[in-house]
């Protein structure tokens, strides 16, 4: 084959390939969704849109948020699908998100949609603060299960409670910001002062306390409902308790990264992410989803979780995060050394 032929061939190829490339686009999607769910999400979406392929990059919320912020000047992701709304708000304040109102967004519960128009993020589902209570260990120690946040300050629980450190875990922060929003600063801090006396450890991950309760390393884990249900399915002797005062919560949400080269495909994905079908898909693991009327009860969880959720002002939480964390660390970090 001589050189001329090659050129001709190359020309012919380039005439053909753009259409193929257009027909089949790939999206790099960053996510913190549980890995068990990823294949299902991908398969369900790609069935609806066979022309788009999803390439996942998954890690915990904190790592994903740090990675996205670190890549700010040269974003690698096209879409974020399944990251805490608080993290997405942080990206939004850095100007990293592309505002887009997906088709059908009106149908979603308003508290799951960014307040701006067009919204920068749209919610999928919620995770709600909950207590994991180990019934076996509780019985051994002759304890009664707590029913409220206030109960946790009772002296008999001393040394038996673990909760996530709000300075290292988003879940920890949603607990603290939930208390402050629910009760106001003064009452919230005095509650935490008393709670601190009973805490045996502040963990660095939000699901860990529940895991520790499940394994009997602690009796009560302040965590959220998802790992609770999961641990229970795995055989952990725990009860999942939603405190009577109400619970802080966090939305998992979707957003388009500004400047993506695959804007059309990204929009298609976000459009699909708010459909009823997608929400039914989220409902397999999550009891509360953004599309009203879709949610069915999830195994091991009560059906009325949505009613436990407090009014959560994401913007307030984001704007006050630094102040709250500073105060928290001042109060509890310095003296959280082990007593031994």
């Amino acid at each position, binding site marked *: 084959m001589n050189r001329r032929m090659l050129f001709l061939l190359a020309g012919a190829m380039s005439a053909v390939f753009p259409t193929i490339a257009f027909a089949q686009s790939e999206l790099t999607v960053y996510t913190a969704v549980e890995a068990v769910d990823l294949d299902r999400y991908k398969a369900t979406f790609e069935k609806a849109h066979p022309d788009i392929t999803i390439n996942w990059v998954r890690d915990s919320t904190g790592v994903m948020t740090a990675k996205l912020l670190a890549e700010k000047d040269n974003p690698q992701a096209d879409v974020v699908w399944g990251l805490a709304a608080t993290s997405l708000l942080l990206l939004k*304040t850095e100007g990293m998100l592309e505002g887009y109102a997906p088709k059908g967004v009106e149908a979603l519960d308003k508290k799951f949609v960014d307040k701006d128009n067009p919204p920068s993020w749209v919610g999928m589902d919620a995770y709600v603060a909950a207590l994991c209570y180990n019934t076996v260990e509780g019985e051994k120690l002759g304890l009664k299960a707590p029913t409220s946040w206030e109960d946790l300050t009772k002296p008999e629980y001393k040394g038996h409670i673990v909760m996530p450190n709000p300075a290292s875990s988003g879940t920890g922060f949603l607990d603290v910001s939930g208390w402050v929003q629910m009760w106001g600063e003064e009452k919230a801090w005095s509650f935490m002062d008393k709670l601190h006396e009973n805490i045996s450890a502040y963990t660095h991950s939000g699901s860990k306390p529940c895991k520790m309760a499940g394994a*009997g390393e602690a009796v009560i884990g302040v965590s959220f409902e998802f790992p609770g249900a999961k641990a229970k399915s795995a055989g952990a002797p725990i009860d999942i308790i939603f405190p009577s005062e109400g619970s802080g919560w966090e939305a998992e949400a979707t957003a388009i990264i500004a400047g993506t080269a695959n804007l059309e495909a990204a929009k298609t994905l976000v459009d699909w992410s708010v459909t009823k079908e997608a929400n039914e898909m989220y409902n397999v693991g999550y009891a509360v989803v953004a599309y009203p009327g879709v949610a069915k009860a999830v195994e091991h969880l009560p059906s009325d979780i949505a009613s436990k959720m407090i009014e959560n002002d994401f913007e307030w939480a984001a704007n006050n995060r*630094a102040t709250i964390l500073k105060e928290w*660390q001042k109060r509890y970090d310095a003296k959280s050394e082990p007593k031994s």
Partner: protein
Amino acid sequence: MTMTLALDFAPPGKRVRQESSRDDRIKLGFMAVIGLYLIIALGAPLAVMLSKSLSTYRFDLAAFEFQVSDETGANWGPVVTAEALNQQLGAITDEELDSSSDGRLAATKFFPDFSFRSPVQYRIRGTSADTAFLAGSTLEKGTEWREYDSGTFRRVVLRPASSLGLENFKTYFSTPALARSIYNSVLMAAISTVVTISIAFALAYGLTRSCMPLKGLFRGILTIPILVPSLLPGIALVYLFGNQGVFKDWLMGYSIYGPIGIVIGSVFFTLPHAFLIILTALSVADARHYEAAASLKASKWRTFTTVTVPGARYGLVSAAFVVFTLVITDFGLPKVIGGQYGMLAVDIYKQVIGQQNFEMGAVVSVILLVPAILAFAVDRRMQKRQVALLSARAVPYSPKPNARLDAICFAFACLVSLFILGMIAMCQIAALVKFWPYDLTLTTKNFAFDLMDGGGWAAYGNSIQLALLTALFGSLVVFAGAYMVEKADGFRLGRGIFHFLAMMPMAVPGMVLGLAYIFFFNNPANPLNAIYGTMTILVVSTVTHFYTVAHLTALTALKQMDPEFESVAASLKQPFHRLFFRVTVPVCLPAILNIAIYLFVNAMTTVSAVVFLYATDTKLASVAVLNMDDAGDIAPAAAMGMMIFYTNVAAKLIHALIARGLLARTQAWR
């Protein structure tokens, strides 16, 4: 033996300058290439990271201008800066103006009579293009006026401007909990170092100076901890000594979560590192020294303190610094088992992962570099005094049987082996039971990784690929680099800088390295941007992350070669590459193979740096362990950890076979 005899004729101690300038040029070129590698893979990313620690954020009130309307919303008052308003009001103290990258300051603070239901309109603009504020959560920048009703103005917050300065360090040291972490970290690292070095030295001594049985077996067992991901000892310690632990009572009421757990875990995972370095140092003994000691009627103790210890001094100091920095920079173990005990590396985790405060994370990283710089300084001093042990006239030492010593050494090695095997056995059990501690039925379901977090069996395949590539390229780069540092003539400054760079990775926490890589490589202006998100960047980061120990191993081996080899080669007018390939490489082959296997097993187990760098198709098994543990799948995490362990054991066995085959051919002189 023939080789050493031939070399005896060279004038002792004197170095003959190499005549061949072509040789020098080749060496210079070599050094430049490897130096460049270290600068790109380490120096530049770290410099980017350091500049982060100096970038401070402060609200620049003079950069914001406001205009307020009257009740009708039509007539505007004068333009005032936030600074002028603050001077009148004193609403914000100077201290409160210092902020972080995520700092927010409500604009309403400057308007004490602000009411969000009033018809008053507000305008705000910046005085420069970079001035930023948020309306709600929307980022606004620039010098154009923006007008808001009072309801929206309530949601306007100012963002700080960035500049350079030392404020971050000031903030760090004035936060008691953070400064306390320094004390804790140094204390833990110091205790762990003393314990680990003592144990490692005793073991290495037993293996080289006694006739205890089963030496090969113990040598194998002692390297086990290096073969497992650092999360496994954490899991094992919780299962053994946690609140539901099998041996909980052994702790006499103390909790494993905290200093006790950190020290036990640290000793476990640093022991092989220290052991290998000290073993290398002790294994090249000159029997003539011992003969001399014996003929001078020196006591056992005196021989020990005047011959054995000084001979291994360089190895001991190296090992101590390796252990110290490993403990002080590790975040995996204190994160799992440290409880509330604040440590520097965990602070980085809190700052970077928990609060996305890269600047503060960078500050802690800079503080963590201090031990490395100290290590470098001490290392330099030691090096000046180090005498080549394997002089060309050395006679290999072989221990004579001594029933009491041999028994003690054997018993001690058994005890340490029991501890290591116990930990591994616990992990194996953890990988096989259904739900610890409540359902202890055995199952292999935990190995069905494709149903779990972390990338399944594909991740396992990726890890093996990464480990092979790292071992191959790493040992090439490291050994060539160490050779240039140790044996090249001239370029003193270049060699000094190179050696300094080679010592740094040890002290750089993986997390810091990983983030530095994002900042440096994921920059569209960087011509190397293309490697971001590929296997290449994982290989480069892993080689760099584990550079120091590999470098020290190569250096130790090279140091034990008499410089006379070079002098003789030069006087015989042999080009350096001939000496390098004919003498240096064969003599150092055990060390090179050790470097390769060291890099392999570490690439299999490493987490901290690569956790930021892997992409869709380069997920890794070690990261899967972390993710599964985080997700609460402890049993599958332990199972994947054990898969890594089996792989590393297999690699070790293959390594041993190759080594035996090669050594038979190249090391007959030993």
